[in-house]
């Protein structure tokens, strides 16, 4: 028995310079940042205001920060893959197969679970309570715990870069390749524990949002008055609640196979590996809609605001959202038409899949009609939305092509498929997140993002997207399979090189985004949003100040109409009255529960990967201790006195009244 399980010095990548150097640089960076935080005395502030915060706005921002960092990390993988293929024509390239396989696996895993998911969850966290007129979500401490469990998963995946290896079985670990027999090292175990832990975090967050949206809305905020983003967030959260347990169950089964010799998916003992494929896609297809539905919501908000019109066909939009929510559970088999379930089954799933495209089409027309006859302002959020409409329609159409079983037999697992899902995920989810960030950034921080660099980032991203993925579509049609470490087909070469150029453009786009952030922070006084409503918005989040006070709304808003904020504003203009009935507001107290749980989850996960059983048990016992410690505390809320609420609110009201005065003066003189 070894005290450290299977862990030894050999786990470090001594003889492969690339991960060693990359790992060393990342560790040095982390140490440097940590040292700066401590030495400059920021630690108490970070601890009090962020790490232990249960404020949904702070948690949302942390989710988005995590997602952006992980997206950069995943992009590094993308550069490696594209450049390897660019040089590996009739040659071995610079990445040996066992590295290349880890890189495409970690790219997909990181981008979906630790890039896209945190970004969408972050937006939902920040926006839902503000749009529905609440003080916080239903379970603030669980919200923080969910975030820290997600961060745990991200950390474990990144630890595998240095200590040991990552999975070589793809972003969905298909057996039998992922079974112990064919993947005896710790790679798949890192994958499993990272996803089991972060999956619990996501599930908790989904439950939280469903409860929040269904049970905590402000008075008057009936279902059919909810902003579209909240509807899509609700649908997405319902999908999380219904789908993520399937992911957890499936991965648990694989874990049991690998750790305790079970035979769920093994080739021996009567195991059934197609069951894994079925189960994982019963989660996987809903997952793509978990990601894209909130993005649809963002576009609905942005397009309506920047067209100066209410959303066209609001109710059909709600119906379409819920329709997608349900149908997305009925199409999973399109991911393995080639299983050979027979013509009838394949046809049924093919048709069900195409129906989703019809429902999505309803949404596209609604966005178009919202713009029709509107006064469109082409600011960054709107640019992302327009880019989305064009791009996503193409992705949907290639999806419909793949939904035709005979066509899919040819295109399955080719680069055409890869292009399809990047088309929908980048053109849909990523554009949506960028639109959302540009749109709500002023709300979160009190100043706008600088426009010029944002516009540059948009156009570069758009160009980069087509430069990378049109070649991949072509390569797919030319028969190039996904995940090739090297190749020797002459006719593929030009397209592979073209895609490489696209990656360079992507890099430039990201640099623009970083510059935009830096420039905006430096010029924040010029970009300041005094009024709380920089865009002439239409929903409730614009009624409070930017950034909103901890309690969001000084007085719980009373909603009367589909676009409640416009109502409030009109009434304020009419009366210019000040609110009088301030009351003390009880707010949930900060707690370290989430952070500490994440800490012990990291230890337990790491210990399980390396079979350090005593440490795993210690981690679990500690987690139980945290639970008891939390359950035992006496005071869970603290009260903000009425005078303080009044003081904060008066400042905001004064600024707003000034603006309204300017507004109506301008109106009268015009």
């Amino acid at each position, binding site marked *: 028995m070894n005290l450290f399980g299977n862990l030894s010095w050999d786990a470090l990548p001594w003889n492969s310079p690339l991960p060693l150097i990359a790992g060393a640089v990342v560790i040095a960076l982390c140490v440097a940042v940590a040292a700066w935080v401590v030495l400059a005395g920021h630690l108490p502030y970070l601890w009090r205001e962020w790490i232990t915060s249960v404020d949904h706005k702070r948690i949302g921002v942390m989710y988005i920060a995590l997602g952006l960092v992980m997206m950069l990390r995943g992009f590094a993988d993308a550069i490696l893959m594209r450049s390897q293929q660019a040089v590996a024509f009739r040659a071995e390239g610079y990445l040996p197969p066992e590295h290349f396989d880890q890189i495409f696996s970690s790219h997909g895993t990181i981008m979906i679970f630790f890039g896209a998911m945190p970004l969408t969850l972050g937006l939902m966290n920040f926006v839902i309570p503000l749009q529905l007129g609440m003080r916080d979500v239903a379970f603030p401490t669980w919200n923080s715990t969910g975030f820290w469990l997600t961060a745990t998963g991200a950390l474990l995946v990144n630890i595998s870069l240095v200590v040991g290896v990552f999975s070589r079985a793809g972003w969905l670990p298909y057996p039998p390749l992922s079974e112990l027999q064919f993947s005896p090292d710790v790679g798949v175990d890192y994958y499993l524990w990272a996803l089991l832990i972060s999956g619990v975090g996501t599930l908790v967050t989904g439950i939280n949002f469903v*409860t929040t949206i269904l049970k905590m809305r*402000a008075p008057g905020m009936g279902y059919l008055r909810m902003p579209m983003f909240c509807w899509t967030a609700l649908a997405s959260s319902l999908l999380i609640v219904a789908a993520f347990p399937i992911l957890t169950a499936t991965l648990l089964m694989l874990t049991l196979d690998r750790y305790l010799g079970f035979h769920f998916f093994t080739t021996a*003992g009567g195991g059934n590996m197609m069951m894994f494929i079925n189960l994982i896609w019963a989660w996987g297809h809903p997952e793509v809609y978990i990601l894209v539905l909130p993005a649809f919501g963002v576009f609905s908000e942005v397009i309506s605001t920047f067209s100066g019109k209410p959303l066209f066909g609001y109710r059909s939009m709600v119906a379409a959202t819920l329709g997608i929510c349900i149908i997305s559970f009925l199409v999973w088999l399109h991911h393995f038409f080639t299983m050979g379930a027979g013509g009838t089954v394949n046809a049924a799933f093919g048709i069900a899949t195409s129906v989703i495209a019809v429902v999505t089409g309803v949404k596209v027309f609604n966005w178009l009609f919202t713009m029709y006859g509107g006064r469109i302002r082409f600011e960054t959020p709107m640019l992302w939305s327009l880019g989305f409409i064009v791009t996503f329609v193409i992705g949907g159409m290639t999806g419909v092509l793949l939904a035709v079983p005979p066509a899919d037999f040819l295109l399955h697992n080719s680069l055409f498929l890869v292009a399809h899902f990047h088309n929908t995920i980048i053109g849909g989810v990523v554009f949506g997140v960028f639109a959302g960030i540009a749109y709500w950034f002023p709300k979160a921080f009190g100043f706008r993002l600088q426009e010029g660099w944002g516009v540059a980032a948009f156009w570069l991203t758009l160009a980069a997207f087509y430069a990378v993925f049109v070649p991949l579509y072509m390569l797919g049609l030319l028969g190039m399979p996904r995940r090739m470490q090297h190749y020797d087909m002459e006719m593929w070469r030009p397209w592979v090189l073209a895609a490489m150029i696209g990656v360079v453009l992507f890099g430039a786009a990201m640099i623009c985004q970083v510059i935009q952030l830096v420039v905006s922070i430096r010029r924040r006084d010029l970009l300041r949003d005094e009024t709380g409503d920089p865009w002439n918005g239409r929903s409730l989040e614009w009624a409070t100040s930017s950034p909103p006070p901890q309690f969001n709304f000084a007085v719980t808003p009373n909603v009367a109409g589909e676009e409640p904020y416009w109502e409030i504003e009109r009434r304020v203009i009419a009366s210019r009255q000040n609110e009088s009935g301030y009351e003390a507001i009880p707010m949930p107290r900060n707690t370290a529960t989430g952070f500490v749980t994440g800490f012990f989850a990291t230890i337990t996960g790491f210990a399980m990967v390396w079979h350090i059983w005593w440490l795993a048990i210690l981690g679990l016992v500690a987690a139980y201790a945290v639970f008891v410690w939390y359950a035992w505390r006496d005071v869970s809320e603290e009260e903000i006195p009425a005078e303080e609420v009044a003081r904060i609110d008066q400042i905001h009201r004064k600024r707003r009244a000034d603006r309204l005065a300017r507004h109506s003066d301008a109106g009268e003189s015009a």
Partner: protein
Amino acid sequence: MTTTIEAPALERHAAPYRLGRADGLATGHGEAGPASKRVVVAFGFWIFLLSDIVMFSAFFAAHAVLQTATDGGPTGRDLFNPTRVAIETACLLASSFTCGLSALATDARNHVWTQAALLVTGLLGLAFLSLEAQEFAAMIASGAGPERSAFLSSFFALVGLHGAHVSVGLLWLGTMMAQLFVKGFEPVIYRLICFNLYWHVLDIIWVAIFTVVYLIGEGR
């Protein structure tokens, strides 16, 4: 004599498309504003339980697929002991009953009876668990462990998952009883509601296991 018929108050209810409770009076419904904390907590916990049921159904599905994949090894008919399973079931159903009694005692804010009912619930749960442990140990000793065949893998995983839930429930129960003893009803009142929901759901899942795993398994 004339009767004046008042028009119904329409301002707030004019919208014909309103979903949810039409009276709009109960909080947490329609336009009536946020629900009480009790409703929010119980509702959230219900959603969690639903998600838990989804997780169980994945294991049920796996068991359904693998029930006949015995790989030449023992079948359910060879392995299951109906008497023991019957006693296990009786223990669990009885514990659900006593758990319900504890809820009544809690409503009456009766400390002694609440604690007594919870204690009996916990003891019955413990009896269930030890019977299950015996069953597992006997099967493994006879060479019919989870690594024997896919059928047994899915059996141990599904029944074991339920057992793990019962164990976690007992840990929770013990902690809560201690807290109730030290601090009284105030801080645990919602948690007691949640525990009741949890325990009953485990019962329902056991009924499904009893049917799908043991009854159908006996017949194979």
